[in-house]
């Protein structure tokens, strides 16, 4: 059965609290068998507790599938880009390096690429993917447009991403502030733009500007 056409995956990394419920739940999904397909990383723990979850964005025109020399990656008609087909995948790593979102994971021992398939065993039966079901911050949300409209009046989904001159549209939506004018996210622009806010949110300010303290005078023993 295909994934229902009115159901979408909406992600809002800004909400993420880094609890790894998604990572742990992903391993419980029957199509992943003990392996987590999710990347959940700290931006820089030294600076901030900011974390971000990355699931497959399920591109309309998936680069990973196109660069696969073995024809191992298929996008099903419902728009889900599936994990590599096991008889075909030759573990060349092209998909891992080509995916503009950095999603596929290579399991070298098994000579197999595995990636987020939206828990196809669940979503194709009308259930929510594991990660979006358990996510306590709902940074990962799965549901209909009507549901997200009602739950997130301050947010708006977009699904267009620019990487250099390449535009990619995705099945998965990313939430941005409703009042912001953006129509897409330009990943390269924000990466090196000197005018953009510093890469890390102003944690220094958050703590050092907020707290008054006397640094303990530590006796050198």
């Amino acid at each position, binding site marked *: 059965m295909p994934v229902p056409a009115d159901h979408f995956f909406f992600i809002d990394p800004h909400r993420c609290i880094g609890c790894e419920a998604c990572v742990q*739940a992903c391993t*419980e999904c029957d199509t992943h068998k003990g392996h987590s397909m999710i990347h959940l990383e700290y931006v820089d723990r030294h600076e*901030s507790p900011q974390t971000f979850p990355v699931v497959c964005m399920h591109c309309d025109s998936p680069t990973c599938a196109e660069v696969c020399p073995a024809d191992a990656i298929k996008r099903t008609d419902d728009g889900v880009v599936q994990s590599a087909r096991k008889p075909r995948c030759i573990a060349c790593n092209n998909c891992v390096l080509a995916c503009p979102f950095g999603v596929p994971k290579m399991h070298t021992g098994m000579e197999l690429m595995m990636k987020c398939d939206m828990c196809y065993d669940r979503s194709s039966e009308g259930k929510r993917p594991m990660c979006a079901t358990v996510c306590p*911050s709902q940074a990962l949300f799965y549901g209909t447009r009507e549901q997200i409209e009602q739950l997130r009046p301050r947010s708006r989904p977009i699904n267009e991403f620019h990487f250099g001159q390449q535009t990619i549209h995705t099945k998965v939506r990313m939430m941005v502030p409703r009042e912001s004018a953006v129509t897409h996210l330009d990943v390269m622009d924000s990466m090196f733009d000197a005018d953009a806010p510093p890469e890390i949110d102003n944690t220094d300010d958050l*703590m050092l500007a907020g707290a008054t303290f006397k640094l303990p005078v530590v006796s050198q023993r």
Partner: protein
Amino acid sequence: MAQQPIATLDIIQHFGPHLAYSDGARLDRGLDPDRLVKTHCCFCGQQCGLQLKVKDNEVIGFEPWDEFPFNQGMLCPKGVKRYLQGAHPDRLVSAQERAPHAPGGFAPLAYDAAIERTAAAIHRIQQAHGNGAVGVLSGASLTTEKAYLMGKFARVCLKTPYIDYNGRLCMVSAGVGNKKAFGIDRAANPWSDIIGAEVVWISGANIAECAPITTNYVWQAREQGAKIIVVDPRITPLARTCDLFLPVKPGRDIALFNGILQQMIEHDWLDHAFIAEQTVGFDALAEAVREWTLPRTAEVTGIAERLIRQAAEWWGLAKSSFLMHARGIEHHSHGVQNVLGAINMVLASGRIGRKNCGYATITGQANGQGGREHGQKCDQLPGARDLANPEHRAHVAKVWDVSPDDLPQPGVDAYEMFRKIERGEIRGLLSICFNPLVSLPDSNYVARMLDKLDFYVAIDFFLNDTARHADIVLPGSLQEEDEGVVAQVEGRVIKINKAVDPPGDARQDWKIIQDLAKALGRPHGFTFHNPREIFDELRRASQGGVADYYGITWEKIEQNYGVFWPCPTEDHPGTPRLFERGSHNPIANGAGPFYFPDGKARFHVAPYSPPTEETDAEYPVIFTTGRVVSQFLSGTQTRRIGPLVEQYPEPRVEIHPQLAAQLEINDGDWTTVTSRRGEITLRAQVVKTIRPDTVFVPYHWAGPKSANRVTIAAQDPLSKIPEYKVCAVRVAKAAAPPDYAAQLEPQQ
């Protein structure tokens, strides 16, 4: 002779903690479960609904339970991996006795013999030293039925005044504060009231890690336009993106609350009508907080003035609000004052007892709420009744079919029981669902007191760190091996359903207690056949009390996804929101919504006092403790679950780069934290997310990694909660790695 029979390392080798992973039946994706059991997570007070997959009397996995309204399928990593605690290699499947020559230091013992020997030891001690020479330590992760039975067992069977529970380490400050201000100890609102509040104030609660499911409520509120204010000495994951972060110096919360209240008074951001009609004591309070000017508040709390002013303005001008707090303000020697300060802010705003106007403490343990209602507290009887109150004694004594005069008078708190051990007043101890060696402060002292006991019996499903001192260990049951009710964070009474039978000789805890009563020759009142019979008696015992469960039935719980107490009659729908205008309660009898004879809430002057141990030249750094998301409390369960251990394997000392630079400590360096009581050596985690005058260590680990070797046993005079959240330490780079680094696995 409650000393460890052999060296800890050898006990660990046999009894763990070892790690469990998904393998065998749990990894076979072709295996269809025999059934799905709708129940709840065994860990924290959120009590998320989930379904356990059961195959051949083994829990082999989980499936989200989308319909349960509180969490709608959401779970934290502990909830996802909780199923791995079943069929665990460390599981105790028989009774054990102390046996110094046996490998592991304990030898299996027939269950009946273990019961007989336990009863004989209790009898011997009570004969020689009186009934009060035996103490009971119980826990707030037990079902309400078990918690109720433990209170009854101590008072009716053992006839000892000395029972207390590990909720003493949890939210008792909130309990006392709530009773003093509202006359009732329960979250005032259902969590749905968070969504729609204009301001959400979170004090001393690392929601993202300790109550993760609440995060979605907070973010939903923000989507609806709420401003989120977080008060914490650390930039927690929620603090990072909240609207206003107040980096409070540990132990100074009451100063902040008083300062905010002073601002509210100064700018007349008060609900005068509410204060006049629904409360008493405001004038005295207003006089008392006059001294808490902005500069003074800023100076004491260590928070920039402008942030305090901004917080006061948002709080003062809000039309609706929800204030939440947790252990961060409660784990203090003035924890009750902190809580009263928070409640004062709420009452002065008049924003309570209405939709989107709320207040709550976030309970920690599975049954943190229900476990504190029905009589396992040292001074309490079922229905949140007082053990010292003659009327209350009479009601419960009648239900129990004993004379009120035979009921002991109130005992002492859990920590005081250890001081009684020191004085030789308590010589025998029974513990269940409690791991004091890890969870009590100053654990070196606790270990010495355990050694001093004549007899110690522990009931547990794993040989926890404290049970290594036991003479007898009775094999208890996991949460999924029994049924009963718990009350979660909102005061919603929900049903835990049984998924599997206990393995081997392991028994459901209530059966063990009843077997003990029988072996002691006092079976009267301990002949229940199932938890439902216990619950039915509990309903009657609680009837007419503040925590009135009389109208709650298991069927009603299942039909309605839980019932909020109080629920006095079977046709009563339960009470999701307390203090609604015109609501009825048995204390006020219609006089008002609050649980006092006049129906009015109480303002209390909450004077500021510094923490018991201030920093000084010798111990110049503030030490504070807390949790990480992948572990739970003393780790008896979570330190045995492989994927959770991998997520955060070992405790680290969080230290600000400015302090680290002064100490020449780099990220990852072995670092020794020393207090007047003990020291620990852990790796440093240098982060900009903590106040530079403070270091933080999570407390889930035992032995040489235990944060509680360092903490202070100072307690709040009213609630007796220990001051886990602040003491003075010295921090230095360690000369060499600690011994344990080469001997122990991360979880051990």
